[in-house]
């Protein structure tokens, strides 16, 4: 990973924080976005990847997306890494959507107390925020990085 990647992460994070701050002003509190249940859902989404991949394969995929290209014979390995990273992102998103729909059903099933409706729906939306953030900040950059390496290897092989 290059130094500029880190800088772009920081700039992007700061801009998002600034946009929140402008929109919400003093009402904005980062602690509002902490929810243990949502965190567990994301863990559940990550854990199901072990159905198909060994833990070492997942670690290798993460390592490979950061490291430089060692040789031409790594193309199949990078393709496998890409499948791993993509499936991690998809599983996390699906787990989040399942939990959101479940919460939505439970909220709709108990509509008598409308005072609790807003907060319950807000908490159920947090899981989607977690999943999308993880996908945007981690899985998409890693997957694109692997894509780039596969393309470079293809170019090398073509001559």
């Amino acid at each position, binding site marked *: 990973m290059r130094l500029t990647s880190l800088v772009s992460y920081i700039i992007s994070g700061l801009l998002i924080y600034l946009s929140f701050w402008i929109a919400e002003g003093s009402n904005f509190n980062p602690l509002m976005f902490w929810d243990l249940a949502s965190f567990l859902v994301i863990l559940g989404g990550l*854990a*199901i990847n072990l159905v198909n991949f060994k833990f070492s394969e997942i670690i290798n995929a993460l390592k490979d997306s950061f490291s430089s290209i060692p040789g031409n014979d790594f193309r199949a390995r990078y393709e496998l890494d890409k499948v791993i990273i993509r499936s991690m992102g998809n599983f996390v998103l699906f*787990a989040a959507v399942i939990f959101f729909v479940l919460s939505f059903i439970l909220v*709709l099933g108990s509509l008598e107390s409308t005072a609790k409706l807003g907060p319950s729906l807000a908490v159920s939306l947090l899981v989607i925020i977690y999943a999308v953030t993880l996908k945007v900040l981690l899985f998409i950059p890693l997957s694109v990085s692997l894509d780039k390496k596969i393309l470079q290897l293809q170019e090398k092989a073509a001559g």
Partner: protein
Amino acid sequence: MRFFSIIAYAASGACLYMALLMAWGGNFNFLYIYDLSAVIGLIAGITLSLINFKFSEIFQAIRDSLSGSPKSYEILNLDRNVLQTAWKYLFSVSVILVFAVMVIILSNLGDTTKLGPSLAIMSIIPLYTLILKFFIFMPLEISLEKKIILAKQQKIPGQVV
């Protein structure tokens, strides 16, 4: 499928269940998310796959993605196609059902007390579809994809890995 896969399934299911308990406590009851009409609708969606594939082909696709025995690139590609088609049919049927229920709800908007429960039942259909995708279709497809990459690695297509 490795033995460890079952543990991974259990761990993931336990995380989701714990999250539900944390978020909803004693209010959560599995009966809230049971709906027979949704189950029948989804069975109809899966049955639609028989338009394109024989029952044996579907069974073979599931068996190939679970077994560790080597298969040729073409067979694995066909298996992946079978699973993807089954998922497409299932998804399309669930979308049709959701919109059908929505039309029924919107045409009976006079009684607002029933609005919440009706919307809840409407959301159960996509929930079932998502659960099927998360726990069955995606793991099987990814397992096949992994095998396809390994089969492709062997230079000659069709060669057993």
